């Protein structure tokens, strides 16, 4: 075994933290989206420009992408090995990080009224 001591425990605990956070945040996002009166640009931009809604969207998106990265890694560790494993985890982390950057930019732009 060559994992660092505590790494697996921290990974396990962080995954539980994001799953618990996503129970209310996921429900909020789903219902807020499903109950929008319309899905045209003016309506959704006005929804996400409200400070609390923008904050919740950022929390939801951040927790979801983090949880997604954790989950993808657990599956990869179970079914892939060696160099392919290292490369696929790296690719997953890069994709999730790029998505998080795009998410932060989008929410900031919408909340700042620039959309």
């Amino acid at each position, binding site marked *: 075994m*060559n994992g660092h001591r505590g790494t697996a425990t921290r990974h396990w605990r962080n995954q539980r933290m994001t799953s618990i956070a996503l129970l209310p945040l996921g429900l909020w996002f789903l219902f807020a989206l499903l109950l929008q009166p319309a899905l045209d640009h003016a309506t959704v931009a006005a929804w996400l420009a409200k400070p609390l809604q923008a904050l919740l969207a950022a929390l939801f998106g951040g927790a979801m992408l983090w949880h*997604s990265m954790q989950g*993808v890694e657990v599956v990869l560790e179970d079914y892939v*090995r060696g160099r392919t*494993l290292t490369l696929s*985890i790296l690719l997953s982390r890069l994709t999730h990080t790029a998505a998080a950057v795009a998410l932060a*930019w989008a929410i900031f732009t*919408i909340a700042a009224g620039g959309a």
Partner: protein
Amino acid sequence: MQSPAERPLSPHLQVYRPMYTMVLSILHRASGLYLSACSLLFVAWLAAIAAGPAAYSGASRFFSSLAVRLVLTAALAAFWYHFFAGIRHLAWDAGLGFEKTSSRRGAAVVLVCAAAAFAATMCLTQAGRWLMGSP
């Protein structure tokens, strides 16, 4: 990142006879991976809002296409399944529901709740009816 190369692999799935415990576990992973892929659609949608009305109207045509609406309908089903199965996993982590009868009951509750929540969100919300093709 340290190399995890020498860690053991899980036994591959085809050596097992399918059982409900295993089917639900695979569904949890499959729905999670599917939602991971769909999270990129979520980010793309937010980016289209941020990019302004012109970009958003292009994105709207993409999201309204039949293929993408089917993808999103499956994402809604995956969301509800992963949501309720996730609660079951958290209950396990707290040491609850491991007995054979309670585990079996938990599995049934997860499937019924996920199916009911999916049906309700599809039929009772504006966006659900939009997914099914009404304007």
